[in-house]
């Protein structure tokens, strides 16, 4: 990758040689990738691959050990306040205030993100209708079920319309209705406002259906990227799930996981 490409203004997220260590453990190991403006980008990988850690670095929550990140041309470590203005995020684990009501959680978010009052109130109502929590708007969040919290979290993430939305396993624990609903809404937002969407998921069919581009990370390294069709073609597989398994290895993780071919042979053997 040359430096001209790195300056490309069409790239809203540009990551170069990013490394994050926790003590001796390397969680993110020298990754480089970029996301185009208006793209729907899926960041896939097995548990512990380094997806959330990467998202945290992109969203100013963690600093990296080395490497360069540009979010719309700005480095989150150097200009955090500016970068925070550009994205919205739905975290993998809960980030609601249990002691506040559902509505208060929404309102709090809307105020923090400068959504003007009238628009804010309208959107809060329509989004809460959308996730079917409007009739529970005055309940404290601690009285909600896991799925209800998740739905509220999604609704909250959509309250302001940022340039980029990060979704870290947004659909985890959601029923299929809500899941489809949510993706329709996001696709619509992507089309109408050109919002860039960066998401992780363990549901491969979801990534296959939604994402324009996919990157697969394993053991902190990006091991493949491209469109779903490209990944399938490269791995000679029929579904994205098979492509994912063939790239990241099935069941057993060997230390020499770099040998993709070896893994592929294993996989073929199992199939027969």
């Amino acid at each position, binding site marked *: 990758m040359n430096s001209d490409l790195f300056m490309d203004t069409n790239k809203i997220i540009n990551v170069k040689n990013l490394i994050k260590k926790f003590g001796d453990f390397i969680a993110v190991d020298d990754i480089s990738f970029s996301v185009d403006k208006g793209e729907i980008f899926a960041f896939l990988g097995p548990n512990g691959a380094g997806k959330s850690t990467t998202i945290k670095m992109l969203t100013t929550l963690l600093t990296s050990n080395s490497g360069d990140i540009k979010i719309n041309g700005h480095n989150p470590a150097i200009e955090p306040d500016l970068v925070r*203005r550009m994205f919205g995020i739905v*975290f993998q*684990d809960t980030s609601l205030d249990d002691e506040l009501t559902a509505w208060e959680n929404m309102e709090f978010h809307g105020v923090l*993100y400068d959504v003007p009052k009238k628009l804010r109130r309208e959107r809060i109502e329509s989004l809460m209708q959308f996730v079917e929590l409007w009739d529970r708007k005055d309940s404290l969040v601690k009285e909600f079920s896991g799925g209800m919290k998740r739905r509220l979290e999604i609704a909250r993430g959509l309250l302001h319309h940022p340039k980029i939305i990060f979704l870290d396993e947004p659909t985890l624990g959601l029923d299929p209705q809500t899941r489809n609903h949510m993706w329709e809404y996001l696709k619509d937002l992507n089309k109408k406002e050109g919002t860039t969407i960066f998401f992780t998921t363990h549901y491969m069919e979801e990534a296959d259906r939604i994402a324009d581009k996919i990157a697969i990370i394993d053991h902190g390294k990006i091991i493949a990227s491209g469109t779903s069709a490209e990944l399938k073609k490269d791995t000679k597989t029929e579904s994205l799930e098979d492509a994912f398994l063939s790239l990241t290895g099935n069941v057993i993780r060997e230390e020499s996981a770099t040998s993709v071919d070896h893994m592929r042979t294993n996989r073929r053997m199992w199939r027969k």
Partner: protein
Amino acid sequence: MKIYILWLRQIKRYLRSKSRILGSLAQPLLFLLAMGYGFGSVFQKAGQGNYINFLAPGIIGMSIIFTSVFTGIEIIWDRQFGFLKEMMVAPMSRLNIMIGRTMGGATVATMQGIIVLMLSMLFGFHPYSFIGVLLTIPVMFLVALLFTALGTMIASLLDDMQGFQLIMNFLIMPLFFLSGALFPLEGLPKVMSIITKLDPLSYGVDAFRYLLINSSHYDIGLDIAVLSIITGFFLLLGGYFFKKIQI
């Protein structure tokens, strides 16, 4: 507006947890009654006057220091329950987040202080003047601000609740007991006298005594100056550590 909503959140959380309000009133009341009535006659015989009157401002200081450090330290809960992330990625400077939270915590602690003041009046505390009582409120807020900022600062440095008990036992308890909240600062042994001078709470309690019972050890001007400077310092330092939080 953003600072206001952060402030409002703290107030709402406080008003909703009735058990917390009651719990944090029980301790000061116990001290006031047990010590006030227990040591009252000894104190009187020593020619120091009415012990309840002397003690009440100290007990107000006590309720404020405990409540404010606690609300500051609540950040650890926010971190554990994930809400801290929501605040930390919001398009708002971390200094402002810290200010909003600290203001909220300090308001809560001040309310707690006012309740203790009123309760102690029920149990025989006689403030010197009504104006004095009114003027005590902003000073309560200043003291509350100081210790909320301290709590925030500590919480920014701790990852989990493990350290909390340690802080309570080795920092907050000594700060309270060595502040002159329970005993007069006059005629203390040299070392003790130096220690009390280093304890910010002793200036707070002294200011309360000045305003509530018209008796003080230091000068009220000095009290306010010391409290303001230390508050400013803790706010800056707290803001600095808060900025450094990684999740």
